[in-house]
């Protein structure tokens, strides 16, 4: 059984259809890149998979390990193992990062019927993960993302990914707002989390990120559809010729 199956997905925002029948199959261990120009529906896809309110699914389905993902609340999807790394992680003043992470981790565990993790056990775990990703302890004590730089925010997303150990990670425009050094650090973090059980869907506008996170498959989106799929060489091809050819094709 595939890990994630998007079948002929049609999505509307208000009265406008954004996705016009998109299909995508992701198996454990695979890294898929989804590329496309602005407005092609890449972020919409990531939002709908994670369950963001405001989108109306008018056709098709999304299955996660064969279960209907669209019937689940966003928190249920997270507990099942779906993780969305946000393009713009929000700031939550007054809620410390580790308080938030502890509450979220325990909510996921509870939903899966596992025991909640005690504060000392959690602190030990989060410290280990932070250390392995070079995230300073001080960041954990601050309000979630409050006053963080763009790079710190993305590192905080990867920290959460490492902590929650999801089955599928959707990385939405991870490179936006990052300079080349910050990008490399973030990509190293992601690569460290690659495993035969875990799949990743890397959404990006630029080929640059894929030099650091090398995908198994590349899909090109245009105007709400996947218009071409191929191996990692497709990304290089795009770098040469741009998206214009696909816009005409769509």
């Amino acid at each position: 059984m595939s890990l994630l199956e998007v079948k002929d997905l049609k999505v509307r925002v208000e009265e406008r259809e954004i996705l016009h029948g998109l299909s995508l199959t992701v198996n454990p261990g695979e890294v898929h890149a989804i590329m496309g120009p602005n407005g092609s529906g890449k972020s919409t896809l990531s939002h709908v998979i994670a369950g963001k309110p405001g989108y109306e699914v008018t056709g098709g389905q999304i299955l996660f390990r064969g279960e209907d993902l669209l019937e689940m609340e966003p928190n249920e999807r997270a507990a099942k193992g779906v993780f969305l790394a946000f393009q713009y992680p929000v700031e939550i003043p007054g809620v410390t990062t580790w308080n938030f992470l502890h509450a979220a981790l325990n909510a996921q565990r509870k939903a899966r019927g596992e025991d909640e993790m005690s504060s000392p056990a959690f602190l030990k775990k989060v410290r280990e993960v932070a250390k392995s990703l070079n995230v300073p302890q001080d960041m954990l004590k601050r309000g979630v993302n409050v006053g963080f730089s763009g790079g710190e925010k993305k590192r905080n997303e990867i920290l959460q990914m490492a902590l929650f150990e999801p089955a599928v990670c959707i990385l939405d425009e991870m490179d936006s707002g990052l300079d080349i050094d910050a990008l490399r650090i973030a990509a190293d973090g992601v690569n460290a989390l690659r495993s035969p059980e875990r799949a990743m869907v890397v959404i990006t506008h630029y080929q640059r990120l894929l030099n650091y996170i090398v995908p198994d498959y590349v899909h090109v989106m245009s105007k709400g559809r996947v218009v071409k799929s191929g191996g990692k060489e497709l990304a290089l091809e795009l770098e040469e010729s741009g998206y214009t050819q696909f816009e005409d094709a769509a």
Partner: protein
Amino acid sequence: MNVVAKTETGRALGDTFALVCDRLPGKGKISDQRRQAFDAYERLGLPHRRIEDWKYTDLRALMREVLPLAPAPDAAALKRAAAAAKSRAIDGVRRLVLVDGTFAPALSDLGKLEKGLSIRALSEVLETGDGALSAQAFASDNSNPMIALNGAMATDGVVVEIADGTVLSRPLQIVHVASGTTPAAMFTRSLLRLGRDVGATLVESYLAADGVKAYQAHDALVVAIGDNARLDHVRLVEDTVDAFNISSATVSLGAHAHLNTFGMTTGGHVSRYQLTVAFAGEGSKVETNGVNLIKGTQHADTTLFMDHAVPDCTSREIFRAVVDGRAHSVFQGRIIVRPDAQKTDAKMMTRALLLSDEAEADNKPELEIFADDVTCGHGATTGALDESLLFYMRARGLPEKEAQALLIQAFVGEAIETIVNDDLREVAISTAQRWLEARA
């Protein structure tokens, strides 16, 4: 002659006063003061929405019945009250308990009073006739009908005097417990007098014994803060959700004095807190913070009045409300800067968080400035929880209610942080926590 149309409730209050006035503590001058206060109340009548100050809290609509004056508590009532007070006990404070409007020495901690601290029952002060003290306790603002009514009817309370230079190590707590088995009204009045260079902390708590139904608590606190003195004040209203609580605090501040006050209302069906601060000496500072957490059909009104009459004083008012269900939050903040009050720095901010479509928050800031060299300002925001934050939190596995609770805690926490005393801050946090848990 002015003729005020009396409502049913207004007439019934008149009957109650006629019935009890001879039995209320304090004869002679006090008795005259009570009569004057009642006359003032009668002239004004029960406040209603056409009176600007009561626009959002129309007592003619909200206070439908007059309850009989609560009888002095019997042994069973005291026992119930003791259990209630114990359930909300705060470590390290000196507790003074008023049960059904009567001071209960047996439940109060009157042992080993620090040097410079004096505590007496109001009824005793009135009966033994300390004229000056009684006069101060009854220095009523009869232009406010509910303060006038309290002046007429008050049965008991505490009179606390703290001598010059005394810094109290233990906070004082006045606990108002409703304990009667039948619905009744309580009228209490307390006086807190801080001399020069005094440091003190006062907690006021309002609660009820198990199973107590629909009661009315009318309270007035008169506070005089001497030169260079500091009062930290925390007020927690945890009345039952069918109770009625009208409380007023009237504070006068000497020179270079400091008042830090925090209020939190989670209980009561209808509640109103009126705080009036009169700046009487230069260089003084007032910080008022508060957060009301209400739901269901609760109505909570916080009305603050900062009266800057002298130069060089600072006032900060930051009021928050978390409103769920069909509850109604009211904040009125009035700042007057009188002609002599140059260099006044007065700011006011109100923020309401609406958790449901039917929740309502009315905010009314009023600035009246008659001096020209001042810094004054106010701001107000009203809104729902941020959807983008909620989605982020849910995408990390938190169920909606839990995500909301974390955001509400953060909102409330910023207000609670202003409480200086660690133990009291913890108490406020657990009070908010109880509200959130009851909501989940």
